[in-house]
């Protein structure tokens, strides 16, 4: 179902933050008006997302002058609101602050939906000169561009979220939860899981957490390339070979973009608990229980280095009651050193805590402690018999 202009306006309002303030403030200076506002028109409410002279927030849409502006082409001006039958009985006009003057310019999205207006208000009647009308229209265009950027970034973030596992892997005996919170709308962290065939014909859960150098949309594009390459190779070959081939497949793209990628990937046998893993310069994976912690690390380089490396596997066993925890360096960064990071991870490994709760605790901790990077965590454990009641969650709040 297509999104209505009001729905688009509501979404833009929700994610606006302070990004429009820097257009609103100069507008006030240019027009010498006591009130300047960016209003987005939803179904029931008008959302004032940036303003000087009035409060930001939601007001009933039937009291909004900008609701009329969005039906207009170009600048809409009312020299004296008291003389206009459409507006003279509105609370803002009939009661304090008793507004007299309004000028607004409708704002359109890239898709052509009119979602709101930039408006100026005054307590005395006035009239814009020709150049002032043009300036108001120009500021409107500036805001439309800013809205387009916001929309593009939000859409890119949505695509990236949909490239994460959305359902539990179809394999009994293991339970897994993962979550990534990009620092901006999109980022260079990703995780993935898939069920693959093991050497003995049995099925394995393959899990990967990867971190592309840098942040934002550019890193997210590279992350998509790496994810697709690993996913494809993993269907046809063993783990170490799949990582090796992924490194070779992506090498030209990583080199031309001067990016490197850390990766931690594993295959887990749900029947025996055997874990095969490859650590390509990631270094942030452990097996924890309430009484123990051991790191699953190797000394391989990340992908995309200027010298050749060969990625081999290491092995461990995941016992019942233990969990594999993999995090990105956005988590690591909020701790002073490895030991305190490991100790903190272990503290979350309470037997009564679910994997999804552990993931949420770790991610929330890093975000709350001022991580300035993408933050990702995966937790895996074995379940005793029956199908694993697995959960995959993800989110993207700041």
């Amino acid at each position, binding site marked *: 179902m297509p999104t209505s202009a009001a729905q688009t306006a509501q979404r833009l309002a929700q994610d606006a933050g302070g990004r429009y303030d820097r257009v609103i403030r100069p507008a006030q200076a240019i027009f010498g008006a006591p009130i300047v506002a960016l209003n987005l028109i939803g179904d029931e409410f008008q959302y004032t997302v940036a303003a000087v002279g009035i409060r930001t927030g939601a007001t009933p849409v039937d009291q909004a002058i900008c609701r009329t502006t969005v039906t207009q082409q170009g600048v809409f001006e009312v020299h004296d609101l008291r003389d206009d039958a459409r507006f003279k009985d509105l609370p803002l006009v009939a009661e304090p602050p008793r507004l007299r003057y309004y000028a607004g310019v409708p704002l359109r999205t890239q898709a052509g939906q009119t979602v709101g207006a930039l408006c100026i208000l005054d307590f005395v009647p006035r009239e814009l000169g020709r150049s002032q009308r043009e300036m108001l229209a120009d500021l409107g265009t500036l805001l439309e561009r800013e809205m387009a950027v916001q929309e593009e970034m939000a859409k890119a973030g949505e695509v990236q979220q949909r490239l994460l596992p959305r359902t539990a892997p179809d394999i009994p005996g293991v339970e897994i939860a993962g979550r990534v919170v990009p620092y901006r709308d999109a980022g260079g962290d990703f995780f993935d899981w898939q069920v693959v065939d093991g050497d003995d014909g049995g099925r394995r859960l393959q899990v990967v957490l990867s971190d592309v150098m*840098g942040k934002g949309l550019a890193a997210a594009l590279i992350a998509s390339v790496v994810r697709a390459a690993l996913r494809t190779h993993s269907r046809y070959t063993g783990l170490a070979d799949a990582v090796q081939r992924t490194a070779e497949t992506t090498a030209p793209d990583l080199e031309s973009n001067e990016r*490197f990628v850390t990766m931690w990937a594993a295959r887990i046998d749900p029947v025996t608990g055997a874990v095969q893993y490859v650590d390509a310069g990631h270094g*942030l994976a452990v097996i924890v229980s309430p009484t123990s912690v051991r790191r699953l690390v190797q*000394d391989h380089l*990340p992908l995309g280095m200027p010298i050749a490396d060969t990625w081999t596997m290491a092995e461990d066993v995941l016992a019942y009651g233990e969990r594999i925890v993999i995090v990105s360096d956005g988590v690591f960064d909020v701790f002073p050193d490895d030991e305190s990071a490991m100790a903190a991870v272990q503290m979350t490994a309470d037997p009564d805590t679910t994997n999804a709760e552990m993931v949420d605790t770790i991610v929330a901790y890093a975000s709350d402690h001022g991580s300035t990077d993408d933050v990702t965590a995966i937790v895996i454990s074995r379940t005793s018999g029956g199908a694993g009641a697995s959960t995959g969650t993800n989110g993207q709040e700041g």
Partner: protein
Amino acid sequence: MELTENDQGRYVVLAPAGRLNLVSAPTLQTRIGELVAGGQARVVVDLSGVEFIDSSGLGALIGGLKVARQAGGDLRVAGAGTQITAVLQLTNLNRLLAPAATAEEAAAAW
């Protein structure tokens, strides 16, 4: 970020100060590229004034290492603090960028 440069003749010491991240990394990498293009392919990056490095900062060092080696030289690092040492260990990049205690020590073999 401030970038101090000290030409020792046989090699150049670049000393960035502050945070070596997404914002400041290109400054360092660009300067390394200029030095190498100008015929000075032996570069020591003195990290003693760097309080924090992120993946983009590491990328600048690796990128610098690459152009230096392609020109027959090398890039070495010195004076890495706790956070930088931890990140180099974690990513195994200390295999390529083993930090020396001081710039003089890093350049000892040149």
